[in-house]
């Protein structure tokens, strides 16, 4: 007779059924048996300094490793601290599995330590949430959780595990492990819709393909490549779709940038939008004039006409829908149109392209980006986190899947996500260089994670675009309420690199253009987590700021 406790059952299920070998969180008394389960089943734990970072890392793990990420939270404050990361994953459709402790069922309504109605709080920001009350059903509940996280449109799930079931034992043979039930279901669009889309695509003179996170979440590199190369359609990839085909692919028009896209999208005759929500960054669809025929592909049918009605809507997994389209579309060549788009983009971005090449004092943020790119190259993972910093960071180019992500530019606009994403990227792809471009404001949210990076040997290089302010807020206030009435917008000059040094990392302070590359050289050579604090031009406003300002103008 072999006994096993509930915490060990969690570890056993994660390891043996889901093949999970890394989880993210912070320890706590309510989940002690589960922590021991991780030890028992040889699951690596990355213990962070604030639970929001754990949820963000697990979310990021799902992006970089391509499978659900798992985070563990203890009851009460641990749970509450994780909420920001869970909410961010919810709006990003990330398959995040949250395992959370709670006060004992035995002590319900007695004023137990950390007694709070967690389920009522977390339900609106999860795809599925449940409490398990029976030790024998732990594997079953975990199986349901993973299925909900990954199937259909992905999203975060929450499983509450009371100590009453984690810390008691059961005869192991009475709790068989379920087989891995996460299957790939295929949704098939209506044949007549496929036919209509094919007709639009075949007759298009100036088509454009825009791919969003759905392209990345469906791992569609291969089918996307076949579709793009057969149709010859120019493409741009965004969010978690970035890098599914490299930025330097012959059909890529990534160099247009977001501004070039805003300027040029209305000139396309057919737009194919795949796994891309037309949210506020697309001015809720108003960016696309009625003259443009619109083919939308999304795993969630509700997205197909949201904010902008599709001429043809194809509900299904991006990779499989693209596969079906490729079988029916004609070979074509739109290289001339692609060159026209790129040329128009260069005219719109003329100023930025000049700034990239020009040494500046004070340093222009786009020049900082160009110098980092020059040193680090395309075969790397870039994460940008901030307001204006996100805009500039999106100018990195990459050959890596999810190789450029502006983590704070998602629907939740969640500053502070950069460092957790950078750490998860380095853990998922240890052979790649990882650079986080942080604003000085956003750096503050998870700066203590330099301690995590040092303890777990995660050598991410974090470059701070330091304009001594909440730049996007400051410049937006300048537009809305005037330069003389700025409120809570400025931060001052701070030596953030010394924070990294104090925690055991490598620090650099840069004020001049010619110091950027030597500082990067030393930072990477150190082999340590590094912080390069770069003082940049405080007057520079990114084009994203007026967009942000306009989006909140109420009359």
């Amino acid at each position, binding site marked *: 007779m072999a006994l096993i406790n509930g915490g060990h059952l969690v570890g056993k299920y994660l390891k043996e059924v889901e093949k999970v070998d890394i989880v993210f969180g912070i320890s706590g008394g309510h989940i002690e048996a589960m922590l021991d389960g991780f030890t028992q089943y040889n699951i690596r734990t990355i213990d962070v300094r604030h639970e929001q970072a754990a949820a963000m890392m697990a979310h990021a793990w799902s992006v970089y490793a391509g499978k659900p990420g798992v985070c563990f939270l203890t009851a009460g404050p641990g749970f509450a601290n994780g909420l920001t990361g869970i909410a961010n994953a919810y709006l990003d459709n990330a398959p995040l599995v949250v395992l959370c402790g709670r006060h004992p069922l035995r002590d319900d309504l007695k004023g137990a330590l950390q007694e709070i109605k967690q389920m009522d709080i977390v339900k609106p920001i999860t795809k599925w949430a449940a409490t398990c009350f029976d030790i024998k059903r732990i594997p079953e509940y975990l199986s349901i959780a993973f299925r909900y996280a990954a199937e259909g449109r992905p999203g975060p799930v929450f499983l509450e595990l009371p100590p009453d079931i984690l810390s008691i034992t059961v005869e192991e043979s009475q709790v068989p492990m379920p087989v891995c039930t996460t299957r790939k279901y295929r949704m098939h669009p209506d044949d007549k819709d496929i036919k209509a889309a094919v007709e639009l695509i075949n007759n298009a003179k100036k088509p454009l393909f825009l791919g969003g996170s759905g392209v990345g979440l469906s791992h569609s590199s291969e089918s996307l490549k076949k579709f793009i190369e057969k149709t010859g359609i120019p493409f741009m990839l965004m969010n978690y779709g970035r890098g599914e085909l490299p930025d330097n692919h012959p059909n890529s028009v990534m160099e247009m940038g977001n*501004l070039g896209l*805003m*300027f*040029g999208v*209305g*000139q396309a005759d057919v737009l194919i939008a795949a796994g891309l929500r037309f949210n506020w960054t697309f001015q809720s669809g108003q960016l696309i004039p009625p003259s443009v025929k619109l083919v939308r592909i999304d795993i969630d049918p509700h997205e197909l006409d949201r904010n902008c009605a599709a001429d043809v809507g194809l509900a299904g997994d991006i990779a499989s829908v693209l596969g079906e389209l490729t079988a029916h579309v004609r070979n074509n060549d739109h290289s001339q149109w692609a060159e*026209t*788009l790129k*040329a*128009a983009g*260069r*005219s*719109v*971005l*003329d*100023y*930025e392209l000049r700034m990239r090449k020009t040494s500046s004092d004070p340093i222009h943020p786009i020049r900082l980006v160009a110098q980092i790119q020059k040193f680090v190259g395309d075969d790397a993972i870039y994460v940008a986190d901030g307001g204006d910093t996100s805009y500039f960071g999106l100018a990195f180019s990459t050959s890596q899947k999810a190789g450029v992500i502006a983590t704070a530019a998602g629907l939740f606009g969640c500053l502070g996500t950069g460092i957790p994403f950078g750490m998860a990227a380095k853990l998922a792809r240890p052979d790649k260089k990882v650079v986080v471009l942080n604003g000085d404001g956003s750096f503050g949210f998870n700066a203590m994670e330099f301690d995590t990076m040092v303890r777990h040997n995660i050598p991410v290089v974090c470059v701070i675009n330091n304009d001594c302010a909440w730049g996007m807020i400051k410049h937006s206030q*300048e*537009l*809305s*309420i*005037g*330069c003389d009435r700025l409120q809570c917008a400025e931060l001052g000059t701070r030596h953030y690199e010394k924070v990294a040094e104090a925690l055991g990392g490598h620090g650099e302070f840069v004020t001049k253009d010619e110091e950027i590359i030597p500082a990067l050289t030393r930072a990477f050579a150190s082999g340590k987590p590094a912080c390069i604090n770069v003082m940049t031009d405080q007057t520079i*406003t*990114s*084009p*994203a*700021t*007026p*967009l942000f*300002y*306009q989006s909140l*103008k109420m*009359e």
Partner: protein
Amino acid sequence: MRFTMLLFALYEILKRASKRNVAYRNYIGSIHRVKIMIKTADGKRGRLFIFDQGKVMTQSGANHPYDAAIVWADAKTGFKVMASQSDAEQFKAAATGKMKLDGMAFFAQWFNDGVKLVM
């Protein structure tokens, strides 16, 4: 000459719209001190449009500081494309390098979108 006159006429139209056209007045809102320059690449012709708390003001000439600029290769192209009020013509000018944006390009787009509300 026609380009210069067009820019002045545009100022008059925008100034009037800022007072009488509700949609345009709401569009420019109470934005503080945004300066848009429209000029030729040689800097010989140009006009600055200043938007400040609902008012539209102007200064002639191309040598003023600005937040964003629409820079035409020459006055003839500038006149032709602007007078056409066509997005396609503007896109074509950009694609052939005859129209470039300088500074905070988004504001140039913002300016153009505002003009569309009035025309």
